[in-house]
């Protein structure tokens, strides 16, 4: 049975991508790292990179065999501006999927000044033979 793995053209149920599991991975890491954090342009580049790496590593070890993984983190400062993110994929809808989490942070500072942090994290999983 193990030898025949090479010829699998579909993931078996146990190893098939489960969006809810991945969404929970993202949510957990994002809440842990970003709660109470305010937008700081000096820190955000490093923060966004390390978040993406951290989520990739966690999902990689979640047991979805034969999946390639793409994680994207978008962090923006909220100053009342409009923002819209869209995505489209060309893939096998039967095996491939994605999970997404949106996080918004409101931080009250002295004098009531506030800075909001808006973050959208998406993980895409692509099955390969």
């Amino acid at each position, binding site marked *: 049975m193990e030898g025949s793995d090479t010829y699998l053209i579909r993931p078996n149920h146990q190893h098939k991508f489960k969006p809810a599991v991945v969404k929970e991975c993202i949510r957990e890491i994002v809440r842990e790292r970003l709660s109470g954090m305010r937008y700081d342009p000096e820190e*955000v580049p490093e923060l966004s990179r390390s978040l993406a790496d951290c989520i990739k590593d966690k999902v990689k070890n979640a047991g979805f065999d034969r999946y390639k993984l*793409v994680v994207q983190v*978008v962090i*923006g400062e909220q100053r009342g*501006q409009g*923002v819209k*993110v*869209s995505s489209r994929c060309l893939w096998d809808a039967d095996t491939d999927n994605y999970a997404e989490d949106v996080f918004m942070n409101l931080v009250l500072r002295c004098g009531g000044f506030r800075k909001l942090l808006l973050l959208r994290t998406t993980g895409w999983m692509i099955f390969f033979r």
Partner: protein
Amino acid sequence: MTGMEEYQNGSEGAFNSEETDGIVKECIENVVAGDDYSQGQVNKWTASIVERCLTQLVKQGKPYKYIVTCAVMQKTGAGLHTANSCYWDTAMDGSCTVRWENRTMYCVVSVFAVAIA
């Protein structure tokens, strides 16, 4: 099977991020053109940009699956950052991110190309 091997060995089959860069820029310019940021149009713009990019990529007939994302943000002095982390075959798979802006908005498009086999 032979076809796949030819694709993998020939450079025209591999993901070309420079070529993709050009495709993406053209799609953004065709959709947004000289318009200013508009709340009423932004949903249509982002959808239209990702769909056009995907259509152009598919036309190349390469053995890839694609993920295309587009973020449009109105300019108010606020910062925007994106970061990617991928677990894939670095020899075959690739990505490309294009930053575009005009007087009133930023547009950031990312393309991820993942080899089928």
